[in-house]
């Protein structure tokens, strides 16, 4: 057995250098998870500011300029700082343990890909304290808002996006290399756990589209500072080109966020149904099909931009086609539960809520995909409600489920089940109170991204804000529960932890040792 990790008992300096110089996949996974939780709290705080201002019509707390910075930063921090690093953290922790590898394939690059991330967000967040304020052009940073009319700090934003893109690309290359080269003998591709499969496909999406995002911000940088006219009509460019390039990245991006969440849920539901996952191979093919389709539907985000009717029809039908493989997945999750001996521990509750609420979000997505109807829904709160149903109830719920599911394996201690369930119900109810009314607001015509609204929208906005505070409170409870578990949780040594859990990670001792699978496991 190799040396163990430095602890606080070895002195501060050694302890800090352990984390800074670590190449251990578990350490890096932990760093990613804590970082993403910190970003989640920060992005959540921005959301609280937004909802507090929207609690009543009129301007009460902040200036409209600052409101715009809050909506922008909330989106950027949640997408790039909270959700994506959370799943990279889970991948770092779980993929080597699931495929019987001793570590990630490229451990030093793994260290680098994590440690540049805090700098990216420090740069991005620091703009809030600068003259002119932070980015205020929406997380989609459409030109010319983000070029001609942007605050001077936009260059910090561009640099931050470059760094986080580099981090994602390196993380993805690492995951692909690990899965392709480091599987234990006998672990064929079609024996890999679903979480590993979804992550490989996600990693390929990331390698393909993060450079496109980097290209988009690079063109912005050149338009702003070097006199090019990619997106400037005065110089022969076209602002609509920006939207095409952004969404060519942006649509695969939403699947980058949701596919690992699918993977997590595909691990948890079989465990608590005590049945193998129904239709494993169809799950793999459905995931691949979704990933492929994500590249050819981007313009459904821009139906109102003035496309020819043939384009509208093509993007409409192609978008609707994605419902087929997604439907296969939902069917398989439900069929896995069908006639299983179900128990409802916290991870299972979050997973079931995921299936229900994600399907809701999928249905509103179908409504939005209808080009003719989208003329009405475009840029209203209906869109906000839709993507929070798939991002929050999708990605965040499944991330929470994953933490509860694997936390005992990570630290050898059980979380408080009562508190977990309490958190689930507060989060579930709070979430629906927040975002269900936003459907109504959107259908009634309330536009998104405004600091104020007409009086007719007052009631549902107040309800939505109350739900948001409730949902925010549930996250504090989550943080408390996790800290309490790590510090004072009931110790457990059961390798399997959960009665129905299957897979290589559950054959390892609990808590998982610092180095695992130094010799590859034998597969049955």
């Amino acid at each position: 057995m190799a040396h163990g990790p430095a602890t606080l008992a070895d002195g501060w300096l050694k302890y800090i250098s352990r984390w800074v110089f670590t190449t251990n996949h578990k350490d890096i996974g932990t760093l990613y998870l804590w970082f993403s939780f910190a970003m989640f709290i920060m992005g959540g705080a921005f959301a609280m500011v937004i909802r507090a201002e929207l609690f009543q019509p009129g301007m009460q707390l902040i200036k409209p300029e600052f409101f715009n910075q809050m909506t922008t930063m909330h989106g950027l921090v949640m997408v790039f700082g909270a959700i994506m690093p959370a799943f990279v953290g889970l991948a770092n922790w779980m993929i080597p343990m699931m495929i019987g590898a001793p570590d990630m394939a490229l451990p030093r690059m793994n260290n680098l890909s994590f440690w540049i991330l805090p700098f990216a967000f420090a740069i991005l967040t620091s703009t809030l304290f600068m003259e002119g304020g932070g980015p205020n052009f929406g997380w989609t940073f459409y030109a010319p808002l983000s070029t001609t009319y942007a605050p001077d700090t936009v260059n910090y934003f561009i640099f931050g996006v470059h760094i986080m893109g580099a981090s994602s690309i390196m993380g993805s290359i690492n995951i692909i290399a690990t899965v392709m080269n480091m599987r234990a003998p006998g672990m064929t591709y079609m024996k890999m756990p679903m979480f590993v499969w979804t992550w490989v496909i996600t990693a390929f999406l990331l390698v393909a589209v993060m450079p496109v995002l980097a290209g988009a911000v690079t063109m912005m940088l050149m338009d702003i500072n070097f006199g090019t006219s990619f997106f400037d009509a005065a110089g022969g460019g076209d602002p609509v080109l920006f939207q095409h390039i952004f969404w060519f990245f942006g649509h695969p991006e939403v699947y980058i966020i949701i596919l690992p969440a699918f993977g997590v849920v595909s691990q948890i539901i079989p465990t608590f149904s005590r049945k193998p996952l129904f239709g494993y191979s169809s799950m793999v093919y459905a995931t691949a099909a979704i990933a492929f389709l994500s590249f050819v539907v981007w313009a459904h985000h821009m139906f109102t931009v003035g496309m020819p009717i043939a384009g509208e029809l093509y993007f409409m039908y192609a978008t609707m086609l994605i419902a087929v493989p997604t439907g296969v997945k939902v069917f398989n999750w439900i069929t896995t539960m069908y006639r299983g001996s179900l128990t409802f521990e916290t991870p299972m509750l979050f997973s079931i809520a995921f299936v229900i609420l994600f399907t809701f979000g999928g249905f509103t997505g179908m409504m939005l995909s209808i080009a003719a109807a989208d003329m009405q829904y475009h840029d209203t709160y209906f869109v906000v409600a839709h993507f929070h149903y798939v991002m929050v109830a999708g990605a965040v719920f499944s991330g929470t489920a994953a933490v509860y599911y694997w936390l005992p394996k990570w630290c050898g201690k059980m979380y408080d089940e009562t508190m977990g369930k309490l958190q689930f119900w507060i989060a579930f109810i709070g979430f629906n109170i927040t975002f269900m009314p936003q459907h109504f607001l959107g259908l009634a015509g309330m536009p998104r991204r405004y600091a104020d609204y007409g009086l007719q929208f007052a009631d549902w906005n107040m309800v939505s804000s109350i739900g948001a505070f409730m949902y925010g409170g549930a996250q504090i409870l989550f943080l408390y529960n996790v800290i309490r578990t790590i510090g004072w949780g009931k110790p457990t040594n059961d390798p399997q932890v959960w009665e129905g859990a299957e897979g290589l990670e559950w054959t390892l001792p609990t808590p998982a040792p610092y180095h695992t699978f130094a010799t590859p496991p034998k597969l049955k």
Partner: protein
Amino acid sequence: MSAHPSNRSLLVKLTALAAAMFMFAIFVLPPLYDLFCEITGIGGKTEGAYTAVAVEVDTSRNIEVQFVATNNATMPWDFYPIEERVIVHPGESREVAFYAHNRTGQDMLGQAIPNVLPNNAADYFHKTECFCFNNQPLAAGETAELALVFIIDPDLPASVNTVTLSYTMFDITDRTNVQVSQVQ
């Protein structure tokens, strides 16, 4: 934990893929977009200077050509078409003019960007002479008549009876390095 021999080659390949996608975004997508717009006429962009060829004037058709002039954002010029609409026959060469007046106290540089509606008419609207081919310098208080000579192609789709040509005047005084050849 010695590195797997093929890790390095995979690293190189995937990094190359990422680099290729970056190049694709910057060097392929924008020209591809322009090409797509040119083929479909979506952007309403008109082509560059046209060399007139001898065609028969189709006196059986009357096409109404409307002119719209708009100032972009904070552009302070007076800018409008002298004739708001003219009736032409396809194949006939016609000269019209736009009035531009710089009412500020400083020398300015403007750039007009054309757009044609309906989209399927963009390819059939030929400009043999246009102020939009170059940028327009106007000294403080100066007035100019900006000339445009155009020909409607006789192949204009039969469904089109009215063509709208719109110019948006951009203030490019502070811009350096404007490539007018891109504009047209």
